[in-house]
């Protein structure tokens, strides 16, 4: 499975971003206003269900998960 692609498609769809070219895989999702803090919870739920992984409190505190690539990096660690 292409982790990056799966995550990007989900984010574009769930947060109604569509094909806006300003969103890249290195865009800060929160600083650039594509996703709000409640959306972060949605993303983590999506990751846990889709990839059958557990994202722990330590992961959340230790790893930046602000861009699609950063989120994907955490997923790659776990699968």
């Amino acid at each position, binding site marked *: 499975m292409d982790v990056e692609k799966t995550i990007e498609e989900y984010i574009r769809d769930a947060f109604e971003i569509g094909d806006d070219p300003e969103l890249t895989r290195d865009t800060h999702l929160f600083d650039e206003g594509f996703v709000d803090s409640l959306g972060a919870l949605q993303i983590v739920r999506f990751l846990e269900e889709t990839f059958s992984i557990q994202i722990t*409190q330590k992961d959340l505190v230790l790893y930046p998960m602000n861009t699609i690539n950063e989120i994907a990096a955490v997923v790659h660690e776990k699968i």
Partner: protein
Amino acid sequence: MNTVIARFKDTVKKFPDNIAVEDMDGSMTYRELDNVSEAAAGGIISLLPEGKRNVPVMVYLPRSVASVASFLAVLKTGGPYVPVDYQVPLKRFLSMTAKVGPALIVTDEDGRERLRDSGLDWGTEICLYGELIQARPRPDETAKRLDGAVDTDPAYIMHTSGSTGEPKGVVISHRGIEDYADWLIEEFGIDETSVFGLQSGFHFDNCVLDMYGSLFTGGKMVIIPEVLFMYPTKLIPFMNERKINTVFWVPTVMISVANSGVLGEIRPEYLSTVLFAGEVMPARQLNVWRRAMPDCLYANLYGPTEITVDCLFYVVDREFSDGEAIPIGRDCPNSRVLLLKEDGSLAGVGEEGEICVVGCGVGLGYWNEPELTARAFVQNPLNKKYREIMYRTGDIGYRTAEGLVMYVGRRDNQFKLRGNRIELGEIEQNSLLVPGVERVCALFDGESQEIVLFVKAKTELTLRKFNLELKKYIPKYMLPGRLVVVEDFPYNRNNKIDRGALKEIYLSKEN
């Protein structure tokens, strides 16, 4: 003499090896905290203007052990600390700095870089925490300064939203903190076994409860990483790992934990005291907590930033049905709450009035803002005999026959969102700084709990791009959740935007 530092020193003597504060990177015992803050105080004193008292020092650090050590260091120099949100927009920070006129800003390397790269003129010394704590302690100098202090000296300045578009710095005294802490220690049985789970930022006055509740007793304060509050299912295991038994959280967090269903799966097993304040706590979510954790003590607290944290409290002592309002309760000791009607007379039982507060918990005013201070901190109109300063909260409430205060709402354009106090005026003033914007009006939609901004603009706007620009001036929690572009506004006879009419048009379009 009678300062919060004297109280802290008592604890250091009694419990030198207890852990005082803990974050994700480490912890400090009371002895360490005392030594580190003493060194930093020595470093700060060498930068203070000679012979001057009560010089504020701004602290711009992430929520961490370092913040607490810095606050204590500033207090040891005899001046008030000014906590600044590490996420604050730099332009807002700059206007706060200009108004406060601090001797210096304490920060870390990232913070200093951010301030330097901004190209803004900060007009004050910027010092690294890491360097200050390497300074030579000057115990004779700090002792001299504290000996000369009086308990009405300012201890901290915290900022709150202002309708003019700029935040106001509320000044709180040592006396205020000590009285408040004495009450909470006694009322909730706080002692050296208490482990606080800090939710609040240090720029938000709720943290005063956790911080002085522990510093005055030998208890521990665990700084819960902010990110965990977005993930309730991860938050509870963390609390258990750290054995947190006491929390003081905003209802938003209590609600999100209740709604997540996590309490049905895993319980915060050490938790015994659950306090909340900052906005209305709905009984429905409180009931979820009470069902899961029936043996905890629950209390609803109330107080604006302009007084020392809280002036009313209610220990939940009976069942509440899901839709029922929870009282904000009775007066804290050393606070007296007066409900005043529009004509200045005292409201009777069941009658609505403005919640006004007297007592030594009342703040000393807004720093460097004599006019705003005179307007909000006034002579108690019922007292003609001597000077008695009363703070008018702008909140409306009434008292039940049992003497409990019930919260009704606001008198003006202020509201609370996720525990943050927001003036619509501040959003409006700053929105005008966004290029292309001609006129704006902000409304708060209580139903969807979001800020709706009506904009008349020359250019096309999207919410995301608009907020990207607005975020330079105001904190994220003030950003509108919806943008409505209008051709023009409805006006009233004074040529002001007719908020009532605008609200009706908006609501009719919604449905």
